[in-house]
């Protein structure tokens, strides 16, 4: 009985679910029919067509988007290839330059080449006078420029208040940095060689090169001093130190590695400059090493120039020029590399 009672209920349920299925099918059919009738009718058909068109458009857009995306990707790949090619060309050119000088110069270089006097009208022998001359000029220029440069940087960062004075000094520094090197040479000629009567000498050349390198040292020192945290100064001042004591004992020790880096980069620049010493210090040939700062000298960069433009034995002089260029290049790049390594180590330690 209970089962019997249950059974019809079950059947009833099954039937009702079936009915529901039929009903939903019927609804779908009705909807389809309605759509057909609607299509037959005019006004609602327009919206229907529009909807269909939209669906088609969406489908097309998806496919088109893929195409467009591919196009954009391809374009990106092409442009990236172009950009990378430019960098390869740039580095390639520079590598070619260094490579050629190294290959043509290495054969000439020997212990004798860097420790002996030139012989036989510059066609044989070594380049010792040029190496020493460059050494003297660099020392002289740095002796002049380092105190002026670091002092300027201390004033600009620690003492000066923003105003017309600082602006004037900044104009001086910025524009001095942009003056062409040959103009420095003319200045040195007119002032040190002629007006002060130092003649063509180590002194005139070193003073001229000192002016050339001054902006480099000021900027590097300023940057290094500004990187010192303000709290160092505050702590020092709070202990009752004066401004100079603060600079001397709190700021400068911390800024020193940065300042040193700037000075080393300055050395690299001074060693390679030719135009400023052409009329103030350099000579193609000296029979002996200079005895005082009032004598003219040979210098590596000028020696290269003179070897390929003067003299009567180019076939003997050109190889020596490449050897000299390799010595100069090794000197300058070695000094710069030292500065860069020093800087990165210093930045890491901060």
């Amino acid at each position, binding site marked *: 009985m209970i089962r019997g009672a249950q059974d019809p209920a079950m059947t009833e349920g099954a039937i009702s679910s079936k009915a529901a299925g039929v009903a939903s099918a019927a609804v779908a059919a009705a909807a389809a029919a309605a759509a057909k009738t609607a299509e037959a009718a005019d006004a609602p058909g327009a919206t229907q067509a529009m909807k269909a068109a939209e669906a088609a458009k969406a489908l097309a857009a998806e496919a088109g988007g893929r195409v467009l995306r591919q196009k954009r990707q391809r374009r990106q790949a092409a442009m990236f290839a172009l950009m990378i090619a430019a960098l390869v060309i740039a580095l390639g050119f520079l590598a070619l330059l260094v490579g050629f000088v190294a290959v043509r110069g290495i054969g000439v270089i020997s212990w004798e080449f860097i420790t002996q006097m030139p012989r036989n009208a510059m066609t044989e022998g070594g380049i010792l006078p040029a190496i020493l001359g460059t050494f003297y000029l660099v020392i002289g220029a740095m002796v002049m420029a380092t105190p002026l440069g670091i*002092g300027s940087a201390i004033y600009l960062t620690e003492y000066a208040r923003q105003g017309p004075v600082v602006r004037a000094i900044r104009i*001086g520094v910025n524009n001095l940095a942009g003056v062409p090197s040959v103009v420095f040479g003319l200045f040195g000629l007119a002032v040190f060689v002629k007006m002060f009567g130092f003649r063509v000498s180590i002194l005139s050349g070193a003073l001229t090169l000192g002016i050339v390198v001054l902006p480099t040292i000021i900027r590097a020192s300023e940057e290094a001093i500004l990187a010192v945290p303000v709290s160092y100064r505050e702590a020092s001042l709070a202990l009752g130190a004066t401004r100079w004591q603060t600079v001397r004992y709190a700021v400068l020790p911390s800024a020193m590695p940065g300042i040193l880096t700037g000075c080393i980069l300055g050395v690299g620049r001074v060693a390679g400059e030719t135009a400023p010493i052409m009329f103030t210090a350099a000579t193609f040939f000296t029979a002996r090493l200079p005895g005082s700062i009032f004598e003219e000298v040979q210098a590596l960069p000028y020696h290269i120039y003179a070897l*390929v433009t003067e003299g009567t034995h180019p076939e003997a002089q050109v190889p020596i020029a490449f050897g000299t260029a390799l010595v100069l290049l090794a000197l300058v790049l070695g000094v710069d590399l030292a500065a860069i390594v020093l800087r990165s180590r210093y930045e890491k330690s901060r």
Partner: protein
Amino acid sequence: MRRRIRENLIHAVLVAVAFSSLVFLVGIVLVLFREGMPIFQKTGLAHFIFGRDWYPTYDPPSFGTLPLMAGSFLVTVGAMAIAIPVGVASAITISQVLPGRARGIVKPVVELLAGVPSVVYGLFGMQIMAPLMMNVFNLPTGLTALTASIILGIMALPTVVSIAEDALSAVPGTYREASYALGATRWETISRVLVPAASSGIVTAALLGMARAIGETMTVLMVAGGAAVVPTSFLQPVRPMTAAIAAEMGEAPVGGSHYHALFAIAIVLFVVTLAFNMVADSFTRRFQRKVAGG
């Protein structure tokens, strides 16, 4: 009390030292004008600038500097045609395309190469580039405006790359993120967002590269050929202003017209580079404001 005197003394010394740069700059201006002005009185400004004949050692001499200025102009334009596209593209590659590790190596290498002395570029141009150009273009001499342009262009590259790279790297990261969020590809982000945002910095790079090319002496002295005629093509030898000063100052008798004329050329050179540097400076400041505001 003694402490205060000491402090004031140090302050005074530092002020004096800080003025040294300005003193040197003013000194350069004064010297150039003092030594250069006499030639304007002698030949007249118009002839000096527009005269087509540079015959400083003839009798009577002629001091028209148009050939020299044209030489400088041609060589500088040629150098920039190489250095700007290659340099800016290299900067984009270094700052945006290369992975960070490679950037850390390439940037210092480029900066290192900025230190190669100009006389070494000159030697390379004279001994290796010039014979090559002579054979390729079948010329009587390889020392031409084109050769000088190529060497100067290579020389200006490290300057352009380094400054343009700094500018691109200084664009705030939010610009890039916003562009990616809008669905832009990396290249679209670079070309339409980052480069425009860094444009004033890139212009600075180009201007400073140009200033360097105009003022460069040793390379053009050794490579440009030295003919003081108004050039009609890139394949002719030219004598840019810097080369004329460097080559002739040794022979010019001090206090003579030739000596004054060379100083007067230096005035032109000084004014042009000063203008370039000042314009570059204003672009730098604009860029800094823009990045700070972004």
